């Protein structure tokens, strides 16, 4: 994932922008972009302070999108997310004041800190691309991209997302700490201006939407589809897994693989795309059985081992 990779010219600038701000986070940038292009949403699970917010902000700024942030707290109400109708004495009418969900790029910080009711108001929006407030259905603006974060350390007073809702996120990512060199360079850059101040938008909303349309047209050959199905099927048959990946997971995997292929300037998906995406797409969609959990295995490990055991299609019947 280093600089030798050739990106599609339309997305290259976005990735460059993120590289400007986020040092050593190109992979996360590519993954986020892939989720965005696949019209999916991301769950970022990491400790505070590694740059989750900065990533989203950079992305929003580069795309010239409306950036909204929701800091989830236990007392947050669904209306704080979706918006509320307020009576206007002048017009004698209720006027709808849109909540943060109406932005293009929404950072849902510490989503597990709020009550399930509030969580589901966001999740419903993510799934339906619309919210219903006071009987009015409001279409969310396009593009619409939610990046939710979770803190894996402090579980006290949290409401972990149910599995069914995790499924709504197309990818689950970890930021991870930067390497020593990257962190040194970060300090160097921060000593002057914050880099996010210097970057400028490189793409309009309209362009982004049209790219999202293009991504849909990326070709997935039958043998690659078969590969995806084989991977997903393997999660359902694995001895360590209590619940395997749903068909929604297959679709998600294909969508992000398409987006990744697009990012790399291809109009067709290769098994490498699928293989690269699998851990991010599949690991939050499986539930390990108690034995595997007791043995200390993580979902990522299991998914990676499944990927390492699934044969890649390298032959095709030509009529």
């Amino acid at each position, binding site marked *: 994932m280093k600089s030798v990779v050739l990106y599609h010219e339309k997305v290259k600038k976005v990735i460059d922008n993120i590289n400007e701000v986020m040092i050593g986070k190109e992979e996360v940038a590519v993954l986020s972009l892939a989720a965005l292009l696949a019209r999916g949403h991301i769950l970022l699970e990491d400790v505070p302070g590694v740059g989750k917010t900065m990533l989203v902000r950079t992305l929003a700024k580069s795309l010239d999108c409306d950036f909204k942030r929701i800091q989830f707290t236990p007392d947050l109400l669904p209306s704080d997310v979706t918006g509320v109708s307020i009576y206007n004495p002048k017009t004698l009418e209720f006027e709808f004041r849109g909540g943060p969900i109406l932005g293009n790029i929404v950072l849902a910080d510490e989503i597990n800190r709020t009550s399930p009711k509030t969580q589901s108001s966001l999740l419903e929006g993510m799934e339906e691309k619309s919210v219903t407030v006071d009987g009015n259905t409001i279409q969310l603006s396009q593009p619409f991209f939610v990046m939710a974060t979770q803190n894996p350390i402090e579980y006290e007073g949290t409401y972990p997302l149910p599995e069914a809702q995790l499924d709504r996120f197309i990818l689950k990512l970890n930021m991870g700490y930067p390497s020593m060199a990257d962190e040194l360079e970060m300090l160097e850059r921060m000593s002057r201006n914050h880099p996010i101040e210097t970057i400028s938008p490189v793409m309009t909303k309209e362009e982004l939407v049209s790219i999202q349309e293009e991504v849909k047209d990326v*070709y997935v*050959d039958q*043998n*690659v589809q078969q590969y995806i199905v084989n991977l997903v099927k393997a999660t359902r048959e694995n001895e360590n897994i209590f619940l395997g990946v749903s068909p929604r997971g297959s679709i998600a995997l294909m969508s992000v693989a398409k987006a990744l292929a697009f990012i790399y300037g291809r*109009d*067709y*998906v*290769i*098994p*490498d795309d699928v*293989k690269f995406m699998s851990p991010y797409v599949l690991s939050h969609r499986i539930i390990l059985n108690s034995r595997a959990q007791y043995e200390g295995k993580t979902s990522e490990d299991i998914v990676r081992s499944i*990927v*390492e*055991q*699934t*044969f*890649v*299609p*390298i*032959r*095709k019947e*030509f009529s």
Partner: protein
Amino acid sequence: MNALKVSKIPSVFTSLLYICGFFIFLEWLYPIKQITETNEMGLFIVFAGFCFLISLLEVRWWLSFILKGAGILFIIHVLFYEQSLLDIAWVHDFVIDILYNWQALTNQEWYELTAIFRSLLFLILIWLMSYLIHYWFVTVKRIFLFILLTFVYLSVLDTFTVYDATRSIIRVFILSFLSLGLTNFFNEVEREVVPFKWTKRMSRWLIPILSIVLLSSVVGYAAPKFSPQWPDPVPFIQHATGTGGSGKTIQKVGYGEDDSHLGGSFVQDNARVFTAIAPSENYWRIETKDVYTGKGWEAEPDETKETYMLDSLNNIPINTFSDDVETQKLQARIEMDAATYLPKLVYPYGIREVLAERGFDIELNMHSDELRTMYSGKDTSLADYNIIYDDPSFDIDELKNDGDDPVEISSRYTQVPDDLPERVDQLAEDITEPYDNRYDKAKAIEQHFGQSGEFTYETEDIPVPKGDEDYVDQFLFDSKKGYCDNYSTSMVIMLRTQGIPARWAKGFTSGNRVVNEDNDRISPDGSDVYEVTNANAHSWVEVYFPDTGWVPFEPTQGFSNLADFHTEVAGSDEDDALDANEAEGPETETEDDPEVEEDDPEIGGPEYEEDDEDKDDVASGFTLKKWHIGVGGGLFGLLLVFAFVRRYRIQAYLLAKKMEREGDAASLQSAYHFLLKILTKKGNGKDPQQTLREYAKEIDVLYSGSSMSLLTAGYEQILYNNNKEVLNNTELPELWKDLVNQVIG
């Protein structure tokens, strides 16, 4: 100390290796004497040794050139010139000879090349080989191909020529095993650049090699081996190529010494062996054999020989019949053909005296009745001689009298192999059962072949007994066709199963009478002149009768007994009269039947064959054919080895052609997968879980390039994108070829 210097192999060991190479090369030279007409092989071997020695000493190239060139000239001089080495005249002759040959070469007149020139070329070849073997054994230390070729060469020679490579193979095995062990070890040491104290640790590496070679040689030599599953491929090859019958081989007809493997087809050869001037027709006997092996005849091992001075010998002690037999003193004259090499006397029954050139000795083999002619201790043909002999006429009544056989006769001449099939015995029993005396029994068996109507006289498609088949059994019950050897051997064995002493006699029939009235050689006393050719070589049966001795019988169809028989009381017994008539009227059958040729195919001792080759077209034509098959087989074997060694290149070539021709997705796919296959063979296989890109990166790192990734990107277009346009990209086949070349190396 410099590690490289330490690991340099001491020259004493490379010399050892080179000497092994020299001895293996000698195995190429040894057979040449036997399979060609090359004499003086010893000199060539000495020259080879000389060349190898000079290469071994690694003298400067110009000195080596001068020494080897001088060696060649010296050998040529020794071989062909009688003048002194310092005499300039021979050099002059030599130069003229070279010029002449050069002309012949440019005119493509291959047969015009002289012996001098051929020897010169051969010497140069040895020179080149000494260089090549030095290169293979000492410089690059890659000798496997040479060793493989040596084995192929020896086995081809062993199979297709008279050369017996049994010992040779063992020698080559030991030498090559040793050399392979040494080269492998030396290569390893050189490659790893390990410091190695050669002399101190000699026992550590030399002893294992030696002991393994020794052990495997002993085990290989001593271990029980299967008999050849396919003892003689020649008939099969001939059959497959349509050049011959199903027999052992097409042999040249003629007298030969080795009868240990009878059977097989042969070609006729009417080259004259000798001319006989004799008053009557009779068998020209040479020797008898009495040990039947199931495959053929062998001489009794404990031969007792006596040597006589020919001119002092007025009563040759060969007494095949008793003094009671009626005889007539006659004289015959034998004139050997100039081309014949037959250092044995051909003689009629009752030989008493030989009149010939002085100085010859005769070595008489008391058991086989063979009379070998020698001159100053060496086997030499006797050009012409007169024989005084007592021509016997056997009394049939006398023969019918029974008597007891002497013990030494009955024990020696009733031998049959232990594994002789029971049915031979049974058949003989059935045939002889009605008769009560030995003569009638013998007669019954003699006539069985003709009377049963089952047997036909053939010289082609005669099988050779294989495995545990018995020659007689095969003829009597399976093939039922054959020539004199089949008939006579079968009769001897059938008689022996009935306890009747019998032996196998061989020589020539009387030959063809020269009918020319003007022939001035017709002797005044009314003798006729007979021309005896190779085709007249024959074998017949001798049966022992207690009062009479050995009496010839003629079971072969189309031949009649050349011996005289009579009865005291004519007409007293119809059968006897008939027998006697038959016996006494031989000419009609033998000579009027053009189909029947007299013959005795033999795998002749090499000396006969070589002699004949020059003189007679049929024989050399045949030899040529046999050589063709040998060489063809060898070449085919080489081709197979070559194809096997180069199989990946051949496949790569075919795939490249296919890509060029068809240019479709399938051909690109098979080409790409072929590449994966050869990479796997090289130990860089792709894991099934690896994607093509991941693998291509690995391969590119390995071969420090980017061809594999580029090629893979192209293949991905086909595989995952259904994009056929990529096939128009002419770079892909080029990338592929480069990679294949890199991988195959």
